[in-house]
Each structure stands twice: as C-alpha cells, then as structure tokens.
C-alpha cells in the first residue's frame, strides 16, 4: 500500500546521519563549554591519537560491508612497527625499511585473504588466529626491546603539526586516503560489488562479480593500511615495540559499528565510519579534559556501542509495529464494507 503517510521524515534519517549530528553537537558543545578543548595543541592531540583508528577504519569499512572482518589489524600494525625497529637497529636506511614494512603488511593481509577465500574459512576465526600469530612473530623479531631513535624528520612527520595550525602533518595523508576510500566505495563498480557481495554473496556471484578475488584484494589492502598505521604509530609515539597497537582491532571495530556499518554486510558508508571514529575520539578527549577517569571512559564506549546496535533496531521495531497498526486500521473498514 503506497500510502503518502509513509513518506515520513523518519524514513530519511539514517543512522550515520545521527552519528554525524551527534559528533557535530559534541564538537560545538565542547568548543563552547569545555576549557582548553579549542586550543590548537589539544585539537592536534585529539586528531593525532585518533588517526591510527581512522586509518584502519577505512579498509575495515569496506571489509565489513563485504561481509567479512579482520581482527588481526592491531597485530599487523605491531608487527610492522617491530620489523621497522629491528631493521633500523640493523642499520638499514629508513627509505628502504618503510616500503619493506608496507610489503609485509600486504603479505599479512594476503595470508588472511587466502585462508578465507581459498579454504572458505570464516574470517572471524582466521583473523583471531593471525592476531596471535602476527603478534607472536613481532615478539620473536623484537623481543622486549624498544627502538626510539628514528630520524628526526620522520618523527616530525609522525607527531608534528603544520605550522601553528591544529592539523597534524600525517592528517593530510589520511585525508587523501579518505577521499580515495570514499570514491572507491561509493562511486565505482568496485564499491557496488562490495555492497552486493555483502548483501548476498550468492547473488553477487551469479551477477558476475568475482567475489573471491574482490575479498582477497580487500584483505590485502587492509593489511597494507594496517602496516601503514603501525609505521605511523611507531613514529607518532617515537617508540617501536612488539606490543604497539595492542587491542586496536576492538577500537576500530567499535568505531565502525558505531558509525552504522552493519555487521551482516551490505550496509554502511565511509562517512558514517569516520563520524563513528571521531565521535569516540572526541568523546574520550573531552572526558579526559573534564577529568572523567579512564575507567569511566571505557564504560561510556561500551554503552555507546550497545546503543548503536540496539537503537536502530528498536526504532525499526516501533516503526513496523506502527505500520502494522495503520494497515490494520485501514484494512478493517475495507473488509467490513462488502458485508
């Protein structure tokens, strides 16, 4: 029944818009009421600390949209940082080390992708395995050492700001990657194929999409981005250790889910993911500024996550119940009329 009443404003309010609005409200509120939030140094801290999550969230969004997940990203980042530190200690030039580390990340992603696509294993189980394996290799490579004496200009790229502005230098790189990810996911056949695969893999295959190759490439890109994050992490915090970025996977997954990327695949936007990432990042920053303890911040993260999945579903259930009542109300006179 194409009822005009159904063209309700609520049908157009999507979850990623809600998260974006929340983020803007939080930023406006914090600029007005929270001391020290708006100064350039604090904003650069906020962005710098959120960048690792923001970097990995880009490929993770594509992966989740296609119906898969990668929990090994934190370990891949840690492994890249550890290898970078070990090679630097070994006297290799950093210009050689960084491409090698990126290549390593690509290989880590390929291993995940091959296990998932060639053997047909569930990505959750595979990447929990490689989560342990990659972190273990990082530990073998670097042991308990930490490497801190990277060249000044690279450390400056990891932690420095552009002039006196609040923008970290590395953020420029992220913005470029964000634009690429946004275009690929939302404006190219590759992006449409990812959505189609996530919605129904079987249907996508019949529609001529090379599902396995697509997934393999997405896993490889995720590994590549994870190692880029690992390199950034080591430079930003000026320390390469085997346990860098431990637990990062959960933060990324939390942010992506908060941004409305459906875990069943086939739904979500890059914008939503970015809003989710920065909502969590900004919230943590604000809570630290107003002296909310780190422990309470964890609780807030958890509650937000639960609400982010519960909220849309409850709203949908209410909407369906209403629609049903309305159809019942209009159907009732129709059935009694002939009698």
């Amino acid at each position: 029944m194409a009822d005009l009443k159904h063209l309700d404003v609520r049908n157009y309010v999507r979850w990623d818009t809600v998260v974006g609005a929340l983020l803007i409200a939080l930023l406006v509120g914090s600029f007005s009421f929270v001391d020290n939030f708006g100064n350039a140094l604090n904003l650069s801290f906020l962005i710098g600390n959120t960048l690792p999550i923001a970097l990995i969230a880009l490929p993770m969004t594509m992966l989740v949209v296609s119906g898969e997940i990668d929990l090994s990203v934190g370990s891949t980042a840690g492994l890249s940082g550890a290898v970078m530190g070990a090679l630097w200690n070994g006297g290799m030039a950093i210009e050689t080390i960084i491409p090698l580390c990126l290549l390593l990340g690509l290989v880590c992603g390929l291993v995940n992708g091959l296990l998932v696509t060639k053997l047909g294993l569930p990505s959750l189980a595979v990447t929990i395995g490689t989560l342990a394996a990659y972190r273990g290799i990082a530990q073998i490579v670097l042991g308990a050492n930490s490497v801190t004496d990277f060249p000044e200009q690279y450390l400056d790229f990891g932690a420095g700001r552009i002039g006196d502005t609040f923008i970290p230098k590395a953020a420029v790189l992220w913005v470029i990657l964000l634009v690429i990810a946004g275009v690929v996911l939302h404006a190219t056949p590759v992006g449409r194929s990812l959505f189609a695969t996530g919605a129904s893999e079987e249907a996508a295959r019949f529609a001529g999409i090379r599902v396995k190759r697509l997934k393999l490439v997405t896993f490889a890109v995720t590994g590549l981005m994870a190692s880029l994050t690992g390199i950034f992490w080591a430079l930003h915090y000026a320390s390469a250790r085997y346990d860098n970025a431990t637990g990062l996977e959960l933060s990324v997954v939390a942010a992506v889910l908060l941004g409305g990327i459906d875990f069943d695949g086939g739904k979500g936007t890059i914008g939503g993911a970015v809003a989710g990432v920065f909502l969590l990042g900004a919230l943590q920053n604000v809570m630290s500024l107003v002296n909310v303890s780190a422990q309470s911040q964890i609780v807030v993260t958890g509650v937000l996550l639960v609400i982010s999945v519960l909220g849309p579903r409850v709203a949908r259930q209410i909407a369906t119940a209403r629609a049903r009542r309305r159809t019942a109300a209009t159907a009732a006179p129709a059935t009694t009329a002939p009698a």
Partner: protein
Amino acid sequence: MTTTVEPVKLAPDGQRSGQLLDRVLKMRELAILVVLVVMLAATQISNSAFLSHQGIEDLLLNATILVLVAVGEAVVVITRNVDLSVGSVLGISAFAAGTYLHGGGNPLVAVLIAVGIGVVFGALNGLLVSIGQVPALVVTLGTLYIIRGIDSIWVGSREITANDLPGGFITFGHDGLGPIPYLAILAALVLAGVGYYMSNYRSGRELYALGSSPEAARLAGVQVRRRILAAYVACGALAGLAGALYLARFGNVDSGTGSGYELTVVSAVVVGGVAFTGGSGSVYGVALGAMLLTSINSVLPSIGVSSVWVLAIDGILLLLAIAVDRVVALRVANVLRKRAAEARSAHHG
C-alpha cells in the same frame, strides 16, 4: 556477518551418513587427544622431570580455568552466538569473591557470589541478544568494555593478594588427591555435567538444533529466545566460577585480571572443534582443546624453546585446527555425495 562455509549436505540415506558423520566427529576429539598425548610423551622423553608429581599438578591447574570458561563459551558458540565478555566477567567476579573473603568470610559463599555475578552478566548478554535481537559479537564487545570499566572503577588501584585470603581457600587452590588438584576435579565434574546435559537432555539438543538452523529450530517449536538466554546464563555462570577458582589458584587479583582472555577462550573453543557457524562439536573436544593450548605453554619452555615463541605457535595452531577441520568437512561432504549418487543409481538400476 555472513560466513562462506557451506553446510555439509546430508545424503538421503540418513542412517549411514549419520554414522559416518558421527565417526568423523568422534575422530576430531580423538585427534586432539592423540596430539596432546604425543606432545606430552615427547616432552617427557626429552626432559624426564616434565611429568613429575609437581609437573602433572601444574599442567592440570593451568588447564582448569581455561577449561571451565571454554566449556561455557562452547555452549554459546554451539547456538551460533559468541560471548566476548567472559574475560571481564572472570575479572570482576574474582575481585568480588576476593573482597568478600578479605574479612575472612566463608569460601563457599565466596564461590556462590562469583557464580551469581556471572549469572547476572550472562543474563544481561542473553537478554540483549535474544530480546534485542542484536548481533552477539557487537553486544558482547560492548559488555566487554562496560564490565571491564565497572570493574576498573570499583577496583581502582587496589589489589587482592594471597595474604588477604583465608588460608583454607588458598590451600584448596593448591592441594589435591595425589597429583590431581581439587580444582581440576571440580572442573572435570562440571565438564561431565555439561557434556551429559548437552547430549542427553531435550533442551541441550535444542541448543544444537538452534545453531544448525535458527529458523528451522523456531519452526520446529524450539523456544529460541529462552534457549539463547539459558546458554548465556550458563556461560556467565561458568566464567564467574572460573573467577573464584582463579582467585584460589593465584591469590592475586587486580583491575586487569582476565583482560584479553576472550581470545584465548575462543581459540580453545575453535581448536576443540566447535565451529563458529554453530550446531557442531562437543564440550569434551573443547576441554581437550583448552588442555592442548595450556599444555603447549608448559611444553615449550621445558624443551628449551624461548617463551617468545609461545604466542606465534598458539596462533598457527589455531589456524591449522580450523584449516584441517575445513578440509575434513569437505572430504566428508564429497564422500556423502558420492554415496548418495551410488544409492540413487542402485535404486534405479
């Protein structure tokens, strides 16, 4: 999340294929047992002090806590769900039991408190998953954070040490009948109970049915929500019990206790042959998987391998386990299909 694992198609001659499937599944548990025994025997040969009285006791004690949590997790995974909050539940219930015992309370009450806390959080997870119908992975990732946060706020920088606890409780955590610790006996009893329930009770079988096909189970009259809720409550209760035993074993609890444990638990479940797709595996296999994982951690140092290798080997073992499972499942499916074809042609001919 959609997984690409196709269900093993049963041949029309149900009984024969059922037997074959049965045998393969039993072989799965046998295989872990063989690996475990061979590994322990080889270690004993290269280091004769390995299976001493103390050595056996340590092996069993190390396995106890993981076995309990993994058995609970298995019950949830069999229903095609997952509980990532078990590490947080273990931590908070261990601290609760420790706080109660701090003034010298009754150990039995302390265990009941720990189990009770586990039940409450298990019910919370179960309600969110079954009534809210939200993906288990997301909900329990959320409660992982929430429970850990509550734990950290409550505990702060305090910690419980063995000196705060009644001597009897600590003794219970270390003593046993010969080389077999009391804690291991307790875990074995729980394991036997859950195993019997899962294979012999109607509601236990319904958990498998639910995991194989939630829709079919619902149509067959299984009370889906109630069963899922029960599975989560059981999982929480076992994590709580494990928390109390953790306190008895280590005597030392702070706000970080059990953090990151969920990945070890899930590894044990998967190595033990319970698939994420639900409806398969057994809690006995999972217990063996847990023993295998904890034993490796003792085996490697005692044959002179540096402890930095442990994590990498754990991960590779997990990958091997799921890869082998998959290959075997494909083989079985092939055999069944061939038999079905033969039966059909024989029938027509």
